[in-house]
């Protein structure tokens, strides 16, 4: 039962007032602090947000101002968003793990006047760049530890801000609040979300209330989400996915958002709460799986045998059962038994026992992994979206789940595929523009309101689903004209648990080469079981046995590429394993784990030269940034392996 | 055939309860001090001697009260004279100390109380009881002394088990045994804990001594009863209170049953002269356990990170 909104509730502050009325006693937020789950009902949240809004107003926040929000998922940071919006100000959430430089750019570009941050760490970062931010007048913090002795002329504890706000309540505060909220309308700017661009500086995507509220309401309707849902907020606040799932949709439907105790306890907290609706990038689903498999290797023989048997059974029929297809009775009974013995406990351990809907997006997910989760009885579906779309472009409807598609257009969304193969869409969620970047906006939005996604894709004739191949601008060609879609190849490689990251090169080259990162968890545990000693990531990454194992994976990928006529020529000829993991702090991948191919090509130029030059190994010295900002140099001699490409089946047929 | 076996089983279980009690004394001290108390057997003897001799001069209840006081005083003396000075030492050193205490106590006991065989008259009925006469012809024979002794021991075992498992003492004790340094630096009064534990072990020894003494008479060989506790500990785990209970019952029953069931087979097969399996069967069982599951049924596997 999703809640449609009338035009009267077209902004989040208005939705808050509505929720405080109709969901007054329902829990809206929970946060585990000092070992205890603390909770707030919608009416309590309304009171808190109002106090905060009045406080921010007293501190000088006005209509049209920007409020930066920096930290991990804490209730008060979410409330600051609503408080700002109630005043007609615009929240600008930012990534908590940005380094000071990145923060400086955004805070300046967005013209932020007040920042609400989580703790001392963030305060310190801002103070280190405050001389570059003349507009920043106040920094407000949530967690006071360590800040007692700081100079508080431009620093304030959030409780203090709320106290200021509550003082006004005895006067005209209440009326002023209601009037301010009433002034907001659907076409107003609701939030600016800066995307971590794979190239160039981040762009500020402007989304209006209409964008978010309508998309949220539609999404809730698409999946029948109501006020009983429980979600856990653990993805970055600055990311549109979190903004939709942990802010917009909860406000629209009235369900509860749970904030974990710390990033390390997310899995445990998820279990404790028993969330009903999950969203995670494919990486999370992969990691959970790898962890389970690794743990299983250490279990007793009996347990392992039972596990393997039932998982194989699930692979055969689990998905069918979930999809509601016909399955013979005895198989169904065995599956029930498996549910009792294996799948149920497994789902419990993974924290998804009560999950009735799980989405994944942001990247392609390995078909094996996707099917595995579904075979366990978890309704995992894919969706495709962008910040510029307020998330939703396509999603898989129930009953039409395939491993390699991203679904059909959501409610009120239209899509089309251009000549060049680029996917375009039009929807109520289409962003207003890039903040202060009219040219870039014009590049992305066509005059008749279509948005260029920047992704290349095709619409599958059989199912009507959209399939995404690669970033449009990354699709290139080898020197012999073969289509080269690097992401396509990289994703196939990353489907193997042993391979954490892959970077493919081939555009305007003679053949395809690949740089790989091993997954330390999976490969480390494999090494332990096979008595391979290693002292560091670098040592493990250089080990010949690991190379052998990865060579097998590459060969398998080649085999699957060989089966597609368009891709057969793009098989991988040579590969190497990088001596260090690709790191966002070094700028090699974005904070949302997207590889920066051009940057990597420059940084590892000697390796690239060796790959295409035919050498068997190459030396590389890279500068790395440690967590505290200091720099060091990491050098290694990296080996290169050749892989024989597999002839396309048609060739074999001809020969036979 | 079933009748005699059942009778033997019951008898074995009753004896087993006594074994459990003695083993419990070991477990308590091991949990609290991390040391295997070699002197537990002699404590049983000493306690029994005290009671036997004192009851010659005064009514049983008075003798009992005085014996309790003596055992507590003994615990205090051990803590003050021996344990206190050995804090933070290796467990092997503590073990040697208990060895010393054992020999001392033996000699001391005999000097003070004498080395004859004494008897303890607890006033238990001695006529055999017959049960289940309807099912088995003639009924099953149960020795009332054993039954009463077993009941008293069982009660004591249960009380101790509950006290040490349900309350936080169990955890505190293990902490103390784990790391003396840590316990001391946190302010846990080691001396007080040891005093309490050894006093309880002493009382356990007293009750065990009383029961055995009533059955066999108080003599030197009682201290050997403690050796029987060893297989019980191996089976049940050195640190487990439920283990001591279960182990004792198993050993008691297995012993008696092996005599009745196994001995005839062995005598016939190997043309042996006689039985006497009862004496060594427990140890063979313990040996087997050491091979298969050294930590016992309930003991802890040592988890250590390398």
């Amino acid at each position, binding site marked *: 039962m999703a809640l449609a909104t009338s035009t009267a509730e077209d902004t989040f502050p208005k939705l808050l007032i509505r929720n405080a009325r109709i969901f007054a006693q329902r829990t809206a937020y929970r946060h585990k602090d000092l*070992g205890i789950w603390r909770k707030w009902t919608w009416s309590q949240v309304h009171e808190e947000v109002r106090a905060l809004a009045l406080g921010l107003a007293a501190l000088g926040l006005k209509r049209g101002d920007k409020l930066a929000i920096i930290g991990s998922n804490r209730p008060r940071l979410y409330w600051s968003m609503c408080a700002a919006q109630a005043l007609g100000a615009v929240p600008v959430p930012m990534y908590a793990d940005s380094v000071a430089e990145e923060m400086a750019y955004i805070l300046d570009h967005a013209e932020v006047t007040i920042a609400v941050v989580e703790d001392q760490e963030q305060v310190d970062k801002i103070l280190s760049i405050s001389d570059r931010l003349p507009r920043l007048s106040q920094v407000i913090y949530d967690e006071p530890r360590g800040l007692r002795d700081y100079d508080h002329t431009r620093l304030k504890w959030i409780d203090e801000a709320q106290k200021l706000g509550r003082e006004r309540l005895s006067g005209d505060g209440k009326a002023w609040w209601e009037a301010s909220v009433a002034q907001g309308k659907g076409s107003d700017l609701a939030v600016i979300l800066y995307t971590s661009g794979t190239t160039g500086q981040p762009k500020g995507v402007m989304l209006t209330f209409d964008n978010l509220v309508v998309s949220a309401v539609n999404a809730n309707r698409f999946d029948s989400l109501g006020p009983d849902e429980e979600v856990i907020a653990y993805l970055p606040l600055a990311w549109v996915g979190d903004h939709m799932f942990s802010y917009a949709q909860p406000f629209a439907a009235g369900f509860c958002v749970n904030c974990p105790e710390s990033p390390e306890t997310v899995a445990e907290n998820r279990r404790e709460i028993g969330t009903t609706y999950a969203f995670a990038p494919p990486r999370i689903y992969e990691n959970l799986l790898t962890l389970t498999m690794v743990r299983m290797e250490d279990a007793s023989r009996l347990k392992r045998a039972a596990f393997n048997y039932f998982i194989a059974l699930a692979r055969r029929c689990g998905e069918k059962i979930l999809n509601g297809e016909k399955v013979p009775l005895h198989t169904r009974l065995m599956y029930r038994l498996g549910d009792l013995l294996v799948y149920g406990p497994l789902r419990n351990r993974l924290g998804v026992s009560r999950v009735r809907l799980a989405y994944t997006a942001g990247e392609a997910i390995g078909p094996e992994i996707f099917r595995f989760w579904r075979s366990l009885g978890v309704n995992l579906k894919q969706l495709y979206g962008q910040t510029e779309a307020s998330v939703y472009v396509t999603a898989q409807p129930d009953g039409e789940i395939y491993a390699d598609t991203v679904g059909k257009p959501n409610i009120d969304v239209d899509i089309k595929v251009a000549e060049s193969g680029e996917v375009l869409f039009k929807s109520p969620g289409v962003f207003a523009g890039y903040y202060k970047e009219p040219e870039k906006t014009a590049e992305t939005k066509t005059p008749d309101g279509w948005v260029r996604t920047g992704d290349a894709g095709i619409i599958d004739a059989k199912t009507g689903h959209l399939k995404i191949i690669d970033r449009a601008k990354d699709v290139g060609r080898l020197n012999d004209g073969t289509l080269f879609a690097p992401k396509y190849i990289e994703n196939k490689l990353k489907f193997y648990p042993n391979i954490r990251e892959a970077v493919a090169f081939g555009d305007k080259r003679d053949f395809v080469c690949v740089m790989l990162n091993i997954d330390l968890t999976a490969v480390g545990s494999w090494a332990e079981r096979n008595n391979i000693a290693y002292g560091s990531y670098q040592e493990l990454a250089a080990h010949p046995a690991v190379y052998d194992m990865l060579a097998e994976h590459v060969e398998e990928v080649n085999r699957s590429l060989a089966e597609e006529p368009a891709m057969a020529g793009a098989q991988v000829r040579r590969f190497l394993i990088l001596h260090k993991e690709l790191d966002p702090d070094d700028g090699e991948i974005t904070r949302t784990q997207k590889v920066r191919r051009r940057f990597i090509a420059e940084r590892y130029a000697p390796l690239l030269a060796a790959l295409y030059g035919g050498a068997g190994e190459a030396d590389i010295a890279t500068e790395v940034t440690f967590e505290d900002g200091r720099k060091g140099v990491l050098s290694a001699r990296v080996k290169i392996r050749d892989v024989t490409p597999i002839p396309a089946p048609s060739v074999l047929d001809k020969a036979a | 055939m079933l009748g005699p076996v059942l009778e033997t089983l019951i008898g074995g279980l009753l004896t087993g309860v006594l074994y459990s009690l003695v083993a419990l004394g070991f477990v308590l001290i091991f949990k609290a001090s991390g040391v295997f108390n070699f002197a537990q057997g002699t404590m049983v003897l000493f306690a029994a001697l005290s009671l036997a001799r004192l009851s010659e001069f005064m009514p049983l209840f008075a003798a009992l009260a005085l014996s309790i006081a003596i055992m507590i005083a003994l615990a205090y003396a051990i803590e003050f004279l021996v344990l206190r000075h050995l804090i933070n030492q290796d467990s092997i050193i503590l073990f040697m100390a208990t060895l010393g205490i054992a020999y001392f106590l033996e000699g001391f006991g005999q000097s003070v109380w004498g080395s004859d065989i004494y008897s303890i008259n607890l006033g238990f009925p001695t006529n055999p009881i017959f049960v289940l006469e309807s099912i088995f012809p003639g009924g099953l024979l149960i020795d009332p002394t054993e039954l009463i002794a077993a009941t008293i021991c069982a009660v004591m075992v249960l009380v101790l088990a509950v006290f040490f498992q349900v309350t*936080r003492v169990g*955890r505190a004790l*293990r*902490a103390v045994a*784990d790391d003396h340094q840590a*316990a001391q630096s*946190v302010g846990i009064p080691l001396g007080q804990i040891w005093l309490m534990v050894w006093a309880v072990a002493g009382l356990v020894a007293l009750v065990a001594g009383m029961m055995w003494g009533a059955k066999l008479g108080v003599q030197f060989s009682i201290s050997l009863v403690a050796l029987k506790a060893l297989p019980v500990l191996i089976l049940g785990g050195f640190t487990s209170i439920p283990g001591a209970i279960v182990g004792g019952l198993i050993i008691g029953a297995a012993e008696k049953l092996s005599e009745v069931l196994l001995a005839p087979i062995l005598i016939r097969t190997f043309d042996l002269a006689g039985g006497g399996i009862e004496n060594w069967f427990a140890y063979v069982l313990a040996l087997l356990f050491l091979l298969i599951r050294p930590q016992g049924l309930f003991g802890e596997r040592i988890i250590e990170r390398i």
Partner: protein
Amino acid sequence: MRAPTAGEVLLSVDDVSLAFGGVRAVTGVSFDIRKGEIRAIIGPNGAGKTSMLNVINGFYQPQRGRITFKGQTRSRMRPYEAAIGGIARTFQNVALFKGMTALDNIMAGRTLKMRRGFFWQIVRMGPALSEEMEHRLLVEEIIDFLKIQHIRKTPVGKLPYGLQKRVELGRALAMEPDLLLLDEPMAGMNLEEKEDMCRYILDLNEHFGTTIALIEHDMGVVMDLSNRVLVLDHGVKIADGTPAQVQADRAVVDAYLGVSH
């Protein structure tokens, strides 16, 4: 670098000598620790640093000399008395109760703070139980401070070394000590763990005013953290002053280079 504090003297060690049989661990050492400072005790291996801490803590009784703590002078002190007096300690090789969880270990640090006597705690009934909530809250704050929420229910025997040391620090903190003795708190840690530990120690000192004496080998850490430094060599004090003074001291340099004097 931090300047020496001007606080009153919290602990003073007066001409203390300690010997084990023929081995003279500490000979005639005198120094003091002021309230609110971080005092580093350094010296080559075998200099008697741990023995010195053990004397302050009550584990060893010196043959000669006196210790004055919070105005009270004694020549012999037992560990229990040191603990009650407000001295908490961590150990070189991590003395944790391996079978207990991290949470229980830190709770053990509250033993002396529980108003009900130890035996009431043991029995854990009645009045002791309501008190437990108070203590649990404080322990949770410590867990939050040290960021070990995710391992609070893990038996410490299973934890990696760095985390074990953090739990041990937590347990010492739970005692709300007036004087915290840290024996090589950074031993065996990688760079990141060391930095975290440094930050915790600094925070403790700056925000809670805890007086800290620490034995440490990493000179960088010593220079950054301490107000004053005591240098021992072969059981004898060879220098005592600010980090800068000590660094420049000839005798100290010689001692580390192994030049006998």
